């Protein structure tokens, strides 16, 4: 059974080897956590796309949420002699031994979107987004949008105690700290889910005079915002006009809402972590340029003015 499958694989591979031999193909191994969320699926899709554009032969290994699978994948990449390794580590601990092996084999390792607690000379660089900065970008948008007008804000937090919830709250509060016209009147967790976002928004609306006292909603992710939009509509108000809505992540569905005028702004958590990683690796391999230990991805702000319909079309096939 194995052998038959293997022979099919052999055929595919032989043809691929022919194609690859033309370009100066690099082989890069990518150990992905799994496909637990739409965002991660989009990250995988974009990593494959980016690799293809650069003529890189990408070896992809899905760890199915298990660290032991990721360690196995890294060891196999090393044994295979790949030119570089990308890894999105499932947990922060336990990478010292295998990263040391990679270092001894002189294979640079780049971390994607999550950190490890190993010493930072064991990897080349880490690419990720700054969660505090994302919250700040969202806050700054609201500051300029309200432009000094009195505004009561309600906040839908992420899962209690999770680092995105803590940091996105912190960044937003920093941005509005010295603006006396902006005040967070209610803040509660919506667990990053649509259903919970809707439920909590309903209670906010009831508590704040049917929503008439609320001028803006800040949601820690788009899914909760989409749920909240539903609740606002059911309460007879116009989301996006009566209540301004800003959220984070930039998943395709929020662009549909923006196109319909029901959401105002979103801050992108880009799934394209691999692009900057490949760039850093290319520079490193060309003339040994050492990148900084942390490469921060852009936290891009999208508003209704950015043609949300077109962004939706571009994003919808990424696997979100």
């Amino acid at each position, binding site marked *: *059974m*194995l*052998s038959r*499958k*293997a*022979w099919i*694989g*052999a055929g*595919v*591979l032989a043809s*691929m080897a022919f194609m690859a031999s033309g370009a100066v193909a690099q082989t890069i*191994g990518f150990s992905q956590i799994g496909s637990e969320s739409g965002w991660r699926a989009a990250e995988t899709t974009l990593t494959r796309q980016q690799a293809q554009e650069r003529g890189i*032969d*990408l*070896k*992809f*290994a*899905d*760890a*199915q949420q*298990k*660290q*032991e*699978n990721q*360690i*196995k*994948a890294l*060891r*196999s*990449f*090393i*044994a*295979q*002699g790949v030119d570089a390794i990308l890894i999105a580590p499932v*947990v*922060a*601990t*336990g990478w*010292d*031994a295998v990263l040391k092996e990679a270092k001894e*084999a002189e294979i640079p390792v780049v971390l994607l979107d999550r950190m490890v*607690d190993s010493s930072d000379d064991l990897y080349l660089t880490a690419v990720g987004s700054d969660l505090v900065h994302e919250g700040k970008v969202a806050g700054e948008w609201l500051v300029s949008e309200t432009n000094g007008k009195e505004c009561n804000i309600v906040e839908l937090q992420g899962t209690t105690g999770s680092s995105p919830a803590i940091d996105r709250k912190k960044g937003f509060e920093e941005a509005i700290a010295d603006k006396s016209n902006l005040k967070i009147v209610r803040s509660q967790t919506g667990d990053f889910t649509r259903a919970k976002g809707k439920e909590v928004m309903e209670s906010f609306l009831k508590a704040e005079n049917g929503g008439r006292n609320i001028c803006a909603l800040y949601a820690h992710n788009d899914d909760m915002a989409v749920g909240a939009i539903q609740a606002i509509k059911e309460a007879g108000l116009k989301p996006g006009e009566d209540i301004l809505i800003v959220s984070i992540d930039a998943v395709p569905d929020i662009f549909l809402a923006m196109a319909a005028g029901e959401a105002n702004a979103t801050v992108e958590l880009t799934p394209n972590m691999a692009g900057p990683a490949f760039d850093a690796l290319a520079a490193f391999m060309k003339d040994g340029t050492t990148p900084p230990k942390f490469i921060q991805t852009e936290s891009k702000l999208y508003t209704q003015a950015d043609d949300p319909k077109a962004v939706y079309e571009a994003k919808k096939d990424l696997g979100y």
Partner: protein
Amino acid sequence: MNARSLPLLATVIIFLLAYAVCYSQYPAMLSTRVIGNLLTDNAFLGIVAVGMTFVIISGGIDLSVGSVIAFSGVFIAVLLRDTGLHPVAVFAMLLVITTLFGAAMGATIHYLEMPPFIVTLAGMFLARGMAYVLTIDSVPITHEFYGRLQDFYYLMPGRGRLTLIGGIMLLVFLTGMILAHRTRFGMNVYALGGGVQTARLMGVPVARTTIQIYALSGFLAGLSGIVFSIYTSAGYSLSTVGVELDAIAAVVIGGTLLTGGSGFVAGTLIGVMIMGLIQTYIIFDGTLSSWWTKIVIGFLLFAFIVLQKGLVWIADRNAGALKSAR
């Protein structure tokens, strides 16, 4: 040709064929690095699979081992973090706990006449729950003794490493083989797998043997937990979910009858290696979904079950033929 060793022979042939196919596509697969990786990466699985082999030969099953490994890792990590104990002392404490845990399950199975499936299922929840109670975080192990254990390896020619944990696994397999085929305990295990009533009539101490079997499985699960903690230098209550099923699969692919009474410890080693080989192949390929590992293992398992059933049927027919000839 003995019909009992036919599944083992089939396993060995499949392994060699599979390796040959892998080698023909990726010559690097025959490097000492890959062989070293196969031993190191599958050390924790191999060690529990030895315990599982004994359990299955005796006609039982032990579903608790995956959780016990996770519990062991968390227990070690938390104790090393919060107390000044030396790792070796912690290892000793842990092995006592997991061995007693196994023995308690064995006693429950025997004295309460409960099916092993249910008892060890309860053990699985209990051990996983205990791990969660200790901590839900992934706790790093930073003791310098761990660094020394990890740096302890024999560098084979070609830069492959025979690590300490890979070596421990091979040692466990060797001991398991001697235990199964050269001792009274081993004979009792096989006898028990042939049927409890017959075993009792043969004078096998059923109670003691059952408890010993599950204690051995608990001990090896604890040892596997130590090895896993060296492998990842961390303890995490969510790790090694489903390893008990991988271990059972390795045992069956290794030619042991799921109904008990027949099997080889050495076959289990090959079973573990086949599973590791499939994973390595898929990573080397880099384009196949890693879920193919499960699919191929599923096919292999199914093939082996059919093969076993076929052999039993042939053996029965021969016995019938003998009888009518008489």
